[in-house]
């Protein structure tokens, strides 16, 4: 299969002598769902932030669909990478309602209303479209965050412990839904989590990260 995302010898540290990621290399195929499993402080969120372009690596390179998006000399800004990101605390815009949140990433498209409606129906949140984030439950907020990240049709979807903090029933429900939608949209996904069961249930491949090294 063709390599979709290639990460070569990626290292990152906030301060000298304190490596968060140490020469990490991995490659992901198109349409693959890969989970990176690790405990807190293992460097898994940093890995996602580097792929998204929110932090800059100290060394190494990231190649997405044969295009270098970050290497030692330069880095492509996150807004130019076409990568979707869903984080644990959702980070929904509190001043926008559900529909406005979902349309935020496709605001320049003419058919934004239709695309947003389609995504809201897919995640079964269309009846909440006029509500604001604080009026939704944790599970509903996470659905909005997923829909918002997916609607601009990103090349790659990054999930940073997206189901953390949800109760078991809700989590199971969302697992099924996400798996179905990801397959339907043929998305390439990198998810970081500390939940082994979740990783094995959702992913095509599970990698583990420890002290900044991927095994």
């Amino acid at each position: 299969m063709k390599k979709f995302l290639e990460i070569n010898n990626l290292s990152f540290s906030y301060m000298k002598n304190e490596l968060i990621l140490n020469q990490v290399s991995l490659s992901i195929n198109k349409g693959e769902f890969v989970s990176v499993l690790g405990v807190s402080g293992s460097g898994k969120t940093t890995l996602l932030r580097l792929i998204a372009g929110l932090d800059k690596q100290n060394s190494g390179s990231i190649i997405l669909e044969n295009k270098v998006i970050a290497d030692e000399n330069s880095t492509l800004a996150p807004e130019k990478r076409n990568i979707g990101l869903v984080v644990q605390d959702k980070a929904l815009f509190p001043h926008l309602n559900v529909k406005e949140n979902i349309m935020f990433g496709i605001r320049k498209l003419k058919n934004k209303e239709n695309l947003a409606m389609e995504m809201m129906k897919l995640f079964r949140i269309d009846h909440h479209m006029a509500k604001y984030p604080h009026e939704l439950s944790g599970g509903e907020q996470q659905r909005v965050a997923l829909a918002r990240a997916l609607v601009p049709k990103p090349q790659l979807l990054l999930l940073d412990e997206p189901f953390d903090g949800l109760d078991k029933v809700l989590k199971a429900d969302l697992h099924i839904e996400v798996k179905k939608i990801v397959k339907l949209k043929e998305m390439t996904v990198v998810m970081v989590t500390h939940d082994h069961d979740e990783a094995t249930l959702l992913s095509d491949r599970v990698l583990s990260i420890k002290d900044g090294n991927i095994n």
Partner: protein
Amino acid sequence: MFKLPSLSFWNLIPLLTLLIFIIPILIVVFSLFSGFSENINHIFNYLLFEYVSNSLILVIGVSFLVFLIGVSTAWLVTNYSFYGKNFFEWALILPLAIPPYILAYTFTGLFDNFGTLNNLARDIFFLDESTVLFPNVRNIYGGIIIFAFTLYPYLYLLARMSFLNQSKSMIESGIMLGLNQFQVFYKVALPLIRPAIIGGLMLVSMEVLSDFGAVEHFAIPTFTTGIFRTWQGLYDLTSAMQLASILLIIITVFIIAERKSRRGAMYSPQSSNFKPIKEEKLKGIKSAIAFFICLIPILIGFVLPVFELSVWAFSYNTAFFSEKFFQTALNTIIVSISAAVLCAILALIVNFSVRFNNNKPLSSLSSLLTIGYGMPGLILAIGIVKLTTTLDANFDLFITGSLFGLIVAYLIKSYALPNLSIEAGFNRINKKIDDSARTLKSTGWHMLLNVHFPLLRGSILTATLLGFSEIVKELPATLILRPFNFDTLAVSTYLYAAEERMFEAAAPAISIVLIGLIPIFFLSRMIRNSKPVK
């Protein structure tokens, strides 16, 4: 393939702002290298000692009184429960609404030989006109009283916050080691809040050294009055700038000391076993003493001046609201709101730029922008006049004496307060929201206007109001930089007071006090929210 990071608008904006803020200050400092005239030699030989000694006496005297009032009241309202305690907690900051120059004018009216209080005493006790019960306050000791009772809230606020952060277990340890209540106060509690005390006293000293209105009214020769006289009396701008440079160096030392101590004051001894202090209930004579210790500063710093202003206002009857007053008020509102809005916009852009770029040098640069807060308005005005006259001469412009210089001075002088509110607002917004916005292709102006601005509306409004109330009070910079025939409330109060037309000074002075109550409202809300959880 893609561009290297470049000097973008968002990288440059804090740098450009700093340049604009610092140029007038640098102009003043560079005057030291332009040779000394006969005037400056005369000042150095015959006047400088008087300026230095008077400024020093004021700083030491005010610091001592502020220490007594600020620390004692903060200790009482934090540790004890007594009659009126909840009222005093916020009312003790009311004198912040009265600028020192207005307190100076009202105290002159109250304590003059034929002032309100002496007249009242003569009427009550049937005394003859030659009897003077209350002493004249137009001297350096009166100046110390004026500054102490308008500026003690700075130390009160800092000391109270530090006392609140002290754990009960520390006080208990002191008692277990055999200390009585007073010994616990000065051997345990007081040393622990030393950074807050130093920080507060530095702020107070900066305000005393920067003041022009009060010392001018009391005819106390200090640095600021000396600078003003050298410029406006001897018409020697270079010598005035050289004199201002010396004051600037002294103020810079105070600013550095204050910032260092603030870092110490931020240190909170709270730990996981932090226990909030339990208030001790005072009864009988002890409760009465605590009540009067807290009441006296409010009486002197707020009630008395407001009473005197009201007496003037009522004596002046309907002419109080003259057409001239409305024009002056309108001028003040237009110029202050414009500058306050500009200040808030600038703070919004600079703080966004720091957040968006997320780099440390930019963040340090941004905190340097608040330096103008400690700068005397007079020094800024001198620097700006020199700058605008140079620009006019070299580029065929006409900006000297226009509103441009005044607005720039207001921006530099009052940037710190709006910045505080906007910085706090940004800190309340989760940074993951920015990350999400960036991955959704929102950046720069789009992110600022569509993500941050709607979330910062409250902070922006607070910032504008705080800036507005600060600008309205500013006297020396306005006096020097205002366009011809353009009076503001502060200038109008000063001019009437200078001509002893106190009744006419009442209307603008009362307006300044009312506007000064705006930050008090926000501060009192903060005080209510800062009580320890019981």
